[in-house]
């Protein structure tokens, strides 16, 4: 890992944290309470950005899974691990926020509404992908299986997104600049960018962890920051180096 990439990665995380503080302040203190729900409506400022970034993160995982299957190099799998875990954490946050919002507004923590049900299926599906990664010890087989499982689990993402359009649901419609009041837009946007930057930071950190864990298993490797993966055999090692540079700038 070079000093330059190290600075870039942490700068993004710090920027995300600062934006999140500002967005939270605006959403919790400055923005007026929602007309019908009162203060509880302020959950919107974290719930909606979490939903957006969770789906974006799983979309990244989907693209990386295809890349992993195509190139068959370990660094794609490192990024996939980061995107899968970060997306799963965000989806868990999303369901917690949603349940806590549902209780005072709908009277119950949970209903088997299409949006809620498909979101729960999304969480379970990606937890299953993460569990699969733990069960497979061979790195190459794990990369292939988890990439295929990610692509299969991703099928639920467009279903989650369009569920409020396709079925009758209690969930509110899409939150877009046209469907929210002008005073709500800024905190929503700030928190969305904040979570996006934090998610990128987490994906990169988790990818670095996978890379180092692989390095630890190869005693012939040197512990330099720009170390290359050595688990791959034959000509794939050269390909992994070339692809890895673009996948994670380590």
């Amino acid at each position: 890992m070079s000093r330059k990439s190290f600075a870039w990665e942490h700068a993004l995380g710090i920027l995300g944290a600062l934006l999140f503080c500002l967005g939270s302040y605006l959403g919790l203190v400055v923005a007026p309470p929602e007309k019908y729900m009162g203060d509880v409506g302020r959950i919107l400022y974290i719930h909606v950005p979490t939903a957006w970034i969770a789906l974006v993160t799983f979309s990244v995982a989907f693209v990386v899974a295809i890349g992993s299957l195509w190139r068959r190099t370990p660094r794609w799998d490192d990024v996939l691990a980061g995107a899968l875990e970060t997306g799963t954490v965000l989806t868990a946050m999303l369901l917690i926020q949603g349940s806590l919002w549902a209780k005072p507004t709908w009277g119950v923590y949970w209903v088997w509404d299409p949006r809620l049900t498909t979101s729960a299926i999304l969480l379970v599906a990606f937890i299953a992908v993460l569990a699969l990664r733990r069960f497979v010890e061979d790195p190459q087989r794990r990369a292939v299986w988890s990439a295929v499982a990610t692509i299969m689990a991703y099928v639920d993402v467009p279903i989650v997104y369009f569920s409020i359009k396709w079925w009758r649901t209690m969930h509110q419609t899409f939150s877009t600049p046209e469907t929210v009041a002008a005073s709500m837009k800024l905190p929503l946007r700030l928190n969305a960018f904040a979570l996006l930057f934090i998610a990128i930071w987490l994906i990169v950190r988790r990818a670095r962890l996978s890379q180092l864990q692989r390095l630890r298993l190869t005693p012939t490797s040197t512990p330099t920051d720009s170390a290359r993966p050595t688990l791959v055999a034959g000509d794939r090692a050269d390909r992994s180096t070339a692809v890895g540079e673009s996948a994670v700038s380590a």
Partner: protein
Amino acid sequence: MEGVILNGREFLIAAWSLSLALLIAYTAVVNIELRRVRRQITRSSPKPP
């Protein structure tokens, strides 16, 4: 609806705090593990003569 507004703040605080707690916990786990693995690799590396 009045009851909703009265009880809203607790749910609001719970939603934000639990979300942040989860995010911070995952961040901590990843970073602590990253530091541990780095230290292990540094320790096991051959020392210069």
